[in-house]
């Protein structure tokens, strides 16, 4: 049985406008990663939550209504409180489509959708060096 996340567990903010993908990513990172996970439904909400809750990393959908992934990164990078938070894109877009622009964002990495809930934590861990 998985240990309950403790106050010292890593904290990941999962951002996706698809409720069911948020749920499964949260369950995956909590159960397999043992991390504390909070969620946001949009880039705007993520920017606010990141300031309030200082996550250790952000798993960020790219195509969302309102602030999309790249715009959200730009906003986070423009705030002293959030500029150094590692960010991983979670996207169904082919990275090659936007590789040049994404490289400029200083991402910790990109994980493709669809993702495997069983290995999501391991993929993030490898990208973040956790």
């Amino acid at each position, binding site marked *: 049985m998985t240990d309950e996340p403790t106050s010292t567990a890593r904290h990941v903010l999962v951002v996706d406008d698809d409720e069911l993908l948020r749920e499964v990513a949260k*369950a*995956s990172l909590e159960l*397999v990663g043992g991390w504390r996970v909070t969620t946001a439904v949009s880039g705007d909400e993520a920017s606010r939550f990141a300031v309030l809750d200082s996550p250790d990393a952000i798993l960020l959908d790219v195509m969302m209504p309102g602030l999309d992934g790249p715009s959200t990164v730009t906003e986070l990078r423009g705030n002293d409180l959030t500029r150094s938070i590692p960010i991983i894109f979670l996207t169904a877009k082919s990275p090659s489509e936007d590789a040049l622009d994404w490289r400029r964002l200083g991402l910790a990495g990109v994980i493709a959708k669809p993702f495997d809930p069983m290995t999501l934590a391991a993929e993030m861990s490898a990208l973040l060096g956790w």
Partner: protein
Amino acid sequence: MRAPDESVDPSSDEHTELDGVVRSIGDHARTVNLTRAAGLSAALDRAAVGQLPDVARGTAAELAHQLVGSAGTFGFSGVSDLASELEHFFTAGDFEPERVAAARLQMRDMLAQLSADPDF
């Protein structure tokens, strides 16, 4: 992060529990994805008769994109592949009869796969 040997053990308690969660959420996701597929099918019908305005075409491309990300995560990898083809179809907006016919076949395959069991 748990120890590496635990993280790749599909029989661990954590993975067994997660598998149950994924299947449970996946039941709901299939319903949502069937609704998305129905929306795509309707858009395809309109495209076939030249009555799909750009706004609706964009919405159809978004629906297909959502299917790409969701279906494969919940055990319908073939649906994700087909949805990706349909996303390109609607994004390109080239509704020549032979392309529409090919899209209809992809649509039919997608609906059939979503009605079958997931592949995990």
